[in-house]
């Protein structure tokens, strides 16, 4: 069992967390967004091997936050609340 860090609750079991998507994926704004731009936002992913920056949610308390970790070795580098992290970098 790996331990993740919730900025609100502290260190908890990985099973209490849910992956929310890549950080910095911002919803397009406006009424006339072209289809490929929507597809890019909804579906296309960087999915990098190595250092990743992701939005996660701690399901017990509902806190959304940005976790930086390694997608191969699973080392967690940091957990920052969404306000402080700046979802859009």
């Amino acid at each position, binding site marked *: *069992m790996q331990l993740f860090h919730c900025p609100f609750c502290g260190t908890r*079991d990985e099973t209490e967390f849910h992956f929310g998507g890549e950080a910095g994926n911002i919803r397009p704004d406006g009424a006339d967004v072209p289809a490929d731009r929507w597809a890019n936002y909804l*579906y296309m*992913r*960087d*999915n990098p091997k190595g250092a990743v920056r992701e939005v996660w949610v701690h399901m017990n308390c509902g806190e959304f936050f940005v976790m930086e970790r390694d*997608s191969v070795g*699973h080392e967690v580098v940091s957990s920052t609340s969404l306000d402080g992290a700046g979802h859009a970098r």
Partner: protein
Amino acid sequence: MTRRYSAFSLIKEGLTGQKGWQPAWRSPEPKKTYDAVIIGGGGHGLATAYYLAKTHGIASIAVLEKGWIGGGNTGRNTTVVRSNYYYPESVAIYGLAHRLYEGLSKELNYNVMLSKRGMVSLCHSTGELEIGARTVNAMQINGVDAEMFSVDDVRRVAPLLNLASDARFPVFGGVWQGRAGTARHDAVAWGYARAAGALGVDIIQNCEVTDFIVEGGRCRGVHTSRGTIRTDRIGMAVAGHSSVLAAKAGFRLPINSYALQACVSEPVKPVLDTVVLSPGTGVYVSQSDKGEIVIGGALDRVPSYGQRGNLPTLEGVISGLLEMFPAFGQLKLMRQWAGIVDVVPDSSPIIGESPLPGLFLNCGWGTGGFKAIPAGGVLLAHLLATGKHHDISRPFDLDRFATGRLLDEAAGSGIAH
């Protein structure tokens, strides 16, 4: 020199000291140019090379594999072959694969040990029975064999299964596909490699693609750990690492990589001669010809490129298995492993030309790529040879994510990948 495998060649070699056997495929040095290059020496890549040479007569083909052939997901799956999908497009692609599997040992002159032992997908409530009936109807309309099983039918094919009415997931019946079964996964890779090699395909192992050559907006070759190779037609079949190669080619894919685990018990006498899947526990299980109980389950919940898997998912799979087969609690677990799979939002594969012209995709098979190997090979070979989609692959083009014509098999057939 003995090239063809038969009872006659076995006897002949037995009488002459086994000295005439040839290596199953050559290991040549890479050439500078090829008519077509395929990245990825798993089942899909090797099958593509085979059909490209056999069906389309392309003379000069290379398969580039960064490790050893069949060492990725082809050698890490639970060997199940089936075609129990919902949408006509899915049935067309998986049905093609299933039919080709049925003739594969003969086609390749290599025994892939296909065992059509049947597969039952359990129904745990009256609601699931209704959805099961819908699946059976859809499969029959699409020309694939399927039938509803009663509890007595389930008991007949899997007598060890926990059918108690007070079970956590009581069994109300099941969906049966009698043509489903298992095949020896390594043999599928080796059989395609041997047959492709015999047609002149260069199979180059320990050759990692490090970058693409792009000239005039087209892909013109690859830089590899074993030198530069030029070609005007490149196919990639690198499940798990599709996004990594796509990034090198300058585009993104609708894929998240996850680990999918499997494990086997110690070998025991025959106790289970079919494949059993429980949507309730998320576990599927069969018994290998060696006697090991082969166990698979849900994806890990943490996106990953680490080919290990994490413990909470393994614990969930094993507890689900013991709920289904309490007797298996006596078994010792012998090995556990994981492969990295391409998880796509609509749980359907991606086949077609990539945003970089000249580079063609075969990816996104999720947890179910093994069963589709012959079709993935036929369809990518068709694309590479003609530059155009086969009718069966067209619905699976990358453009469906912009047009919205998704093929959601997670919703359609309840297959969780």
